[in-house]
């Protein structure tokens, strides 16, 4: 390896190592560097809350959008966290309404493209659900509590 190229490559190696070390030491994230905090906080609570979208059919029936195919390119992890950040940000209620409206439009677009076989819906609702963690996860479809955050009808 030529000397000049070796210097350049060493700089690349150091960038990788120092960039990673910085995020590890400071416990911060600068993607693609990260301190990789996933699952790092011990969980002791027997309950947890989660935001979830529900579709509403013409006959008033509700169903949860628990499959990524209804919300792609979002997924069941990213979308609730995005909605939570929007909710907690400035002008949260109005912005989360806009966001849910876009999820409704996206559901329809995916349905039109036959990317999922969900029923046609007339509205979309965002709930905050709370569960007590059941040892056999038997209550997945039956949360202890649910709070309506917003509802958006078809335009």
């Amino acid at each position, binding site marked *: *390896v030529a000397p000049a190229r*070796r210097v350049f*490559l*060493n700089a*690349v*190696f150091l960038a*990788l*190592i120092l960039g*990673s070390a910085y995020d*590890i030491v400071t*416990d911060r*994230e*600068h*993607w*693609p*560097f*990260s*301190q*990789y*905090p*996933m*699952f*790092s*906080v*011990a*969980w*002791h609570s*027997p309950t*947890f809350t*989660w935001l*979830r979208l529900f579709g509403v059919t013409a006959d008033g029936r509700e169903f*949860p959008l*628990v499959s*990524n195919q209804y919300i792609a*390119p*979002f*997924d*069941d*992890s*990213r*979308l*609730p*966290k*995005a*909605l939570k*950040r*929007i909710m907690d940000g400035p002008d949260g209620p109005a912005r989360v309404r*806009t*966001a849910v409206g*876009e999820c409704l*439009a*996206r559901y329809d*677009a995916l349905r039109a493209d036959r990317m999922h076989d969900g029923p046609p819906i007339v509205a979309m609702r965002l709930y905050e659900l709370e*569960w007590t*963690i*059941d*040892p*056999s*996860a038997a209550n*997945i479809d039956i949360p202890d509590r649910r709070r309506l955050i917003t509802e958006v009808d078809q335009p």
Partner: protein
Amino acid sequence: MTAARREWNRFWFAPGAAATLGMCRLLFFGMLCVWMLPHDFSAWGSYSPVFWMPIRLFDVARVPPPSTDSLILMQTVWKTALVLSALGLFTQPAMLIAAALGLYLLGLPHNFGQTQHFDTLVVFALAALALSRAGDAWSLDVLLNPGRPREPEQSGEYTWPIRFVWVAMALIFFAAGISKLRHSGLDWIFSDSFALMLVRQQYHISDGEPLTSWGIAIAAHPWLSHAMAASAVSVETLFPLALFSRRARRVVVPAGLMFLVGIRVLMGPTFEQFMMCYVFWVPWERVTAIVRDHAHVDLRRRLARGDADRLFTTADEPH
């Protein structure tokens, strides 16, 4: 200091075979193609700025929310570059494009509310390959160009990209282990935390569904969930040993892969892209030598058995 420098240089630039790096390139880009071809990034362009929460890289670079049309164009070019990189055709420019557009396209979803961590290693691997001479073997560029040597001399140029991915992977595992110890200490192992997480993951809260419900069964046995939590933290924090000890490598590297498989099976998060980078741990020149030796032995055995006629007759010849 001189000894440390010598070790540093030996680690990164020990002479290596072009065939190993070439095979890593072929397999890595090949798998990434298969994984990414059905993936549509253009849908991110259909959201309004209400969802746009840029990560630092995009914020500092003042990258605006994308349009659907620009994403369609970019992903088409990117996927083409992935295919060309895998085939080893126009390898150098293809790998450069794959790395540059990969940084953008793989980073893009993280600007929509959550930074996930499945693809950081892929970004580093793409960057390393873009700067490498990974097209010197197992490539159409070599096959189609009679002037290029079929078996280039061993060089440090064929070692450092592989070691780069090793180091990046080791840093990622290590950071994840340290994160757990920093935020939770040994509580992460000895409390009921891991068991609760295993069950909680069944409630449709992950980017991918757990492939099985075995997490529930494991959570029902505290000793088993404690043992799994302990092994997870151990594998993560001890992974850097794989860089320095061949013996540790034999244990820690497969254990890390099993750990990722375990996460996917029990908890859901989709680490498939990360797992693709395991091709860089395989000494492909030795694997191909073993396969070649077996093929020769098999041929000699068949010749010794008198199968030569059958081996060398074509379908048109009378038996």
